[in-house]
């Protein structure tokens, strides 16, 4: 008899491991820094964007966490991915399925019947009893929906609590915010959360109720006298320009109430095309600027798309259609972050603290079940994409947000590199190194020394051991399950200072499709150096992984600039994959390459009966990592916005006795447009 999944969850091996013992390449940190006891990884891997059956995912909330942070193999089959931290980032709005159960389509033994809220009211399941669907009635029978603020409070947060005890890892209750007037974004409000014993996700739920455009509930939670606890909701302005203003109000609310305990990061930002002033669609650069101005310590990023295995013969990787800005993905990133001189470089060119992150956007495995090794849609968190933030001796929820806000973070696909990247710079007349998100101060003419180190692991999670079909045309035979780094690009761009709202260049016309890829936001951005892996110092570590390093230099001018890095397995001028400079082409071009190995899986799209590089094979073949920028500012020039916003975070932490640990603060003052109300002081 197959054991019930519910029992499986309760009897899952209890793992009690400190984050410093996570089993990836970084465990060897002590090997090359000469500290035998220093076994702590410099960075820890996580995921902040994933789904379960509370909204449109395919598996139960608990199952999703089990597979993402558990070790070894799940009891009913399927590899676990051992993430160090996990932020449950499910849509706002409502859902009709009971997310203590998986969907039938996931094919999980003992948990293979789609279950609706209307079928379980009053029953105690996994220790949770839901007696009623609260708020404004929303559907009947199997279409009766629970508003997300309720499932955040009463299903997901208790699940986070139970799994924290099981795995001893850092779990957060978050949200994929369906922004008024826009596409989606990742949000977390950790104020009040403490899954190690007490606390709640009330603040996260309140944000969802107030500001998610899919949450049209007009009641919310009530007190003993039936009075709404969260009054004053704007349930009208959910689209177009008015919707954008509501989104800005949401970020202002985060900045005012939880400036160090929350974030709001727009995600798959190109997918729905440009912003639509009379509808609900994507983002233009002015919207990122508005968000960062309203929330200098909470709106500090862009998330590149997940859904990396969705690409069929018509495209679709990242869930992007031809109507997305850019017309699709480029090396599994949207064009805003993949294009040198694109939207991200435009924001960095202002000196903004806007950093890039990437996560799985896990929903389902498409035509496969949750335990199958192949996928035609998404990867489970940790399987393909890993978002790294700095490790700490006492790593907490606050550490995740502090790490992301600092910019000292990088995102890796297909484990092309591990958890121990070093990317730092210093002036030749100074001993102080600066890393991602930080600002190096130098004298004009001073040489800047830049160091980079990374470990290419011996294996990744790919189920395929045949040679990468995208690399065969350039004569490289590289198994898909063996990570391979071809080169690293060091990309630089000038920083010319923030553009004030309404000033020329603040808003930039955007375009759907490939026309959107032609827009240049920072003409100074360029691939300044391209370092081939074969030119790096290299040595093998005990487990067969390879440590690569290089040192290079730049010369400081009289102007501030930034240096960011990306790496890939794709050489420049690889047909149908990269241009002669090494930039990723539109991923739809990968489909022109056939997958002819006898082991090419049966789910790949075909043209005239011949399998093409699509779905998960495409994702495992076209691999990139992105590192956030180091800023460089000559002495005597005004502080950059990134420095000012980091100073603001430090000031807030000091003023409010921020303990870098769980606590809860009350109402704070308004910080809207803080960035533009300050003098540009010089040092």
């Amino acid at each position, binding site marked *: 008899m197959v054991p019930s999944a519910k029992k499986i969850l309760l009897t899952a091996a209890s793992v009690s491991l400190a984050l410093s013992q996570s089993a990836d390449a970084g465990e060897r940190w002590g090997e090359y820094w000469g500290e035998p006891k220093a076994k702590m990884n410099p960075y820890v891997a996580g995921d902040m964007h994933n789904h379960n059956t509370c909204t*449109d995912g395919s598996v139960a909330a608990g199952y999703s966490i089990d597979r993402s942070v558990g070790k070894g193999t799940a009891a009913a089959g399927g590899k676990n991915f051992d993430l160090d931290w996990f932020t449950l980032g499910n849509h706002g*709005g409502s859902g009709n399925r009971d997310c203590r159960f998986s969907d039938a389509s996931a*094919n999980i*033994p003992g948990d293979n019947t789609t279950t609706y809220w209307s079928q379980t009211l009053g029953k105690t399941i996994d220790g949770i009893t839901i007696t009623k669907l609260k708020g404004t009635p929303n559907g009947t029978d199997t279409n009766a*929906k629970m508003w997300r603020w309720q499932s955040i409070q009463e299903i997901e947060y208790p699940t986070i609590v139970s799994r924290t005890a099981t795995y001893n890892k850092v779990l957060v209750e978050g949200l994929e915010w369906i922004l008024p007037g826009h596409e989606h974004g990742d949000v977390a409000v950790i104020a009040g959360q403490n899954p190690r014993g007490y606390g709640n996700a009330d603040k996260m739920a309140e944000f969802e109720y107030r500001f998610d455009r899919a949450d049209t509930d007009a009641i919310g939670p009530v007190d003993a006298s039936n009075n709404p606890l969260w009054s004053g909701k704007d349930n009208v302005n959910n689209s177009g320009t008015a919707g954008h203003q509501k989104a800005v109000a949401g970020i202002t609310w985060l900045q005012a109430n939880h400036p160090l305990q929350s974030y709001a990061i727009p995600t798959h930002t190109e997918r729905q095309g440009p912003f639509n002033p009379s509808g*609900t669609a994507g983002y233009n650069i002015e919207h990122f600027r508005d968000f960062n101005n309203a929330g200098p310590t909470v709106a500090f990023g862009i998330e590149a798309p997940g859904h990396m295995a969705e690409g069929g013969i*018509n495209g679709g990787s990242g869930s992007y259609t031809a109507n997305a800005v850019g017309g699709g993905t480029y090396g599994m990133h949207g064009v805003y972050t993949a294009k040198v001189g694109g939207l991200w470089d435009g924001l960095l060119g202002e000196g903004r603290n806007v950093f890039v992150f990437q996560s799985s956007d896990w929903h389902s495995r498409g035509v496969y079940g949750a335990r199958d090794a192949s996928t035609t849609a998404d990867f489970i968190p940790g399987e393909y994409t890993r978002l790294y933030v700095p490790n700490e001796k006492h790593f907490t929820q606050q550490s995740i947000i502090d790490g992301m806000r600092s910019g000292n973070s990088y995102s890796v696909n297909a484990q092309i590199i591990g958890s121990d990247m070093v990317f730092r710079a210093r002036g030749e007349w100074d001993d102080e190194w600066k890393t991602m998100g930080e600002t190096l101060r130098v004298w004009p003419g001073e040489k800047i020394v830049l160091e980079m180190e990374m470990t290419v692991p011996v294996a990744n999670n790919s189920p395929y051991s045949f040679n990468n079909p995208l690399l065969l045309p350039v004569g490289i035979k590289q198994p898909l399950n063996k990570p391979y780094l071809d080169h690293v690009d060091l990309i630089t761009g000038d920083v010319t200072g923030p553009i004030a709202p309404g000033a020329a260049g603040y808003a930039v016309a955007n375009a759907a499709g490939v026309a959107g890829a032609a827009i240049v936001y920072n003409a100074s951005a360029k691939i300044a150096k391209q370092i081939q892996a074969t030119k790096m110092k290299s040595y093998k570590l005990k487990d067969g992984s390879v440590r690569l390093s290089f040192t290079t230099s730049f010369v400081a001018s009289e102007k501030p600039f930034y240096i960011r890095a990306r790496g890939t397995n794709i050489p420049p001028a690889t047909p149908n994959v990269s241009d002669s400079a090494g930039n990723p082409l539109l991923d739809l071009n990968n489909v022109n390459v056939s997958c002819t190995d006898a082991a090419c899986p049966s789910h790949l799209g075909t043209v005239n009966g011949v399998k093409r590089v699509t779905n998960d094979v495409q994702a495992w073949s076209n691999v990139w990592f992105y590192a956030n920028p180091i800023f460089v500012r000559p002495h005597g020039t005004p502080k950059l916005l990134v420095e000012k916003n980091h100073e603001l975070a430090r000031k807030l932490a000091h003023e409010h006795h921020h303990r870098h640990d769980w606590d809860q603060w009350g109402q704070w003052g308004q910080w809207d447009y803080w960035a533009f109300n300050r003098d540009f002081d010089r040092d």
Partner: protein
Amino acid sequence: MSRLLISIAAVLALTNAVSANEEEPTQETCDAAVAEARAEAAALPADDVSRYFAERDIQQALVEAGNGEFDDCVEKAERALLEARERPHSLKSGERLDILGAHEVPPR
């Protein structure tokens, strides 16, 4: 290659049709898109692998509708429709999709 170009053109036509419509998709829009895709898929032989792909997309479209995400519902239904019309998936003799059934547990 010509089939690929036709497919891309079809996707462009579908996405442009959505973007040209300023109205947000509704439950009714979703229901209509699902019904059309379902009819197209049902016309395929029961063992056609593209029918299976299309039915999985339809299933996800219904999930999106249950979550109130009607734009995603329409998008998944359109993908199912395209799958059923273009049939980009095929299995060679002896090939199968390696999918674990809910009653199967792999050996550890």
